[in-house]
């Protein structure tokens, strides 16, 4: 999703150190390297994807964010990115805590389970929603902890995590999420992008 990368890229200042957690094929890492002067590293659980990244000369280590974030010292990166993977962790709570420990700023993007299509699916069909962004069936989904933009807001409030910026993505439309339009954005956003600070 190009728009997501654009938003993330805008958040990031030049000459900063960036860690992409769950970097996949390294597309975001390459996008950032091309568009910014940044020192970008990646952590990825899939061997196949890690090999792909390394073949492209990217500094990626094979590992699992739930265990391997521990090795990074406190505040060792200017930005830590978690793009659309929070929902796949056993303990998203611990992961977020670790991200905020390792990064001075943290960028989290979540597929929004509060989107109207998702709500409608469950309401009308009485079935677990399957959408373009969330193409899995309940029995084979890697997504263990789906949440909505509203849920994530509540989580940050409870954990006293400062949401520095929050962006809604709906198709190619990019807009700001504020406390006053939160209910509406939670209904129309496919993706929420958050810049967090401790």
């Amino acid at each position: 999703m190009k728009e997501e990368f654009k938003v993330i890229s805008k958040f990031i200042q030049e000459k900063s150190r960036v860690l992409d957690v769950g970097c996949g094929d390294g597309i975001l890492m390459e996008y950032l390297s091309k568009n910014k002067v940044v020192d970008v590293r990646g952590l990825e659980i899939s061997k196949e994807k890690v090999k792909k990244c390394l073949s492209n000369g990217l500094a990626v280590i094979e590992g699992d964010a739930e265990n391997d974030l521990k090795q990074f010292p406190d505040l060792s990166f200017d930005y830590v990115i978690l793009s659309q993977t929070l929902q796949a962790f056993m303990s998203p709570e611990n992961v977020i805590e670790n991200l905020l420990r390792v990064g001075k700023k943290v960028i989290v993007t979540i597929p929004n389970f509060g989107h109207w299509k998702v709500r409608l699916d469950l309401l009308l069909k009485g079935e677990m929603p399957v959408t373009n962004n969330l193409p899995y069936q309940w029995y084979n989904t890697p997504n263990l902890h789906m949440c909505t933009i509203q849920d994530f807001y509540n989580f940050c409030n409870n954990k006293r995590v400062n949401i520095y910026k929050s962006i809604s993505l709906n198709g190619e439309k990019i807009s700001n999420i504020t406390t006053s339009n939160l209910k509406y954005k939670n209904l129309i956003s496919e993706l929420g992008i958050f810049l967090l600070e401790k």
Partner: protein
Amino acid sequence: MSDLNKMKNIIIEKTLKLDCGKEISNFPLAYETYGNLNEKKDNAILIFHALTGDQYASGINPITKKEGWWNYAVGPGKSFDTDKFFVICANVIGGCMGSYGPGTIDPLTNKPIGTNFPVITINDMVNAQYNLLDYLKIEKLFAVAGGSMGGMQVLQFVSNFPNKARVALPIACTSSHSAQNIAFNELGRQAIMSDSNWKEGSYDEKSTNPDKGLAVARMAAHITYLSKQGLQEKFGRNLQERSDLKFGFDADFQIESYLRYQGSVFVDRFDANSYLYITRAMDYFDLTKQFGGNLSKAFKDTKTKFFIISFTSDWLYPTSENKDIVIALNAIGADVGFVEIKTDKGHDSFLLDVPDFLSTIKNYLNTTYSNINERRI
């Protein structure tokens, strides 16, 4: 003799102070090169060999007439592409392929030095090889690479000579030799030393070598290079050229016959005293201790790009030990990549045809080399 004459070597005149306290000078270091050094002299890769390797990494070894030990990885169009890179490999000191070792003839006695050879370390090996770069007039290496003991040399080299190499590839290795590995090495040494032909190391290479001891050492070590699954799949309980058990101690099983063969061919190409010295050097390797228990300090301020590789079925230098190096590098924000390659070929994987492993290295080196060049322009 003509083959020995073809062997490249330099005489290192400069005094080298060894970790044991002794000093050596005017000693030979044998090496081989593959490919060509380009005009900018920025395409050189120094490869370090493992315990029983030598300088002949690629092509046909002119002494043994067998394929070079890293023939899968080094050569035209291969992982270390000699059409593109200038690959250098030296025989470690303590070795037996032309470099200064226990088999070197002492001019005073006209006999091999034997156990009068000083105990050397990985650090000594690396410091000796550094002289080769001066001789070849290479200011900066593109990469240093090696597996197993070769990987240990990579770590030591990068620590001793920061930023002398742009890229470091330590493969299937450790920063600190484990008790289990020391135990296996000790088993090998005891096998050699309990062979009556060893004669406290003063055997005459031409007649009575401690072949039996050395063969047993190799057999034991060879088991540690393979995985249980790999052995089971390759040999299982298959019998060797017989339809039933013979109720004796001949090689009934294929695995027995295979190990005996491995032992017997090894003694033709390797010196027993070298085996003692090199395994000792591996046992003494503890880069973590050298830096007061903090491995990160070994790589302080490094600008080298690290790419660390381990193998799933390697129980001799397991992923966890390779990962310790990754962790130490991440702790100081070094540029590090890491992948564990899935294979059932055990520790030996780095020497074998493991396509995932070979292609990832090839792509990594090629991309990194062109990235560095682009950035410089």
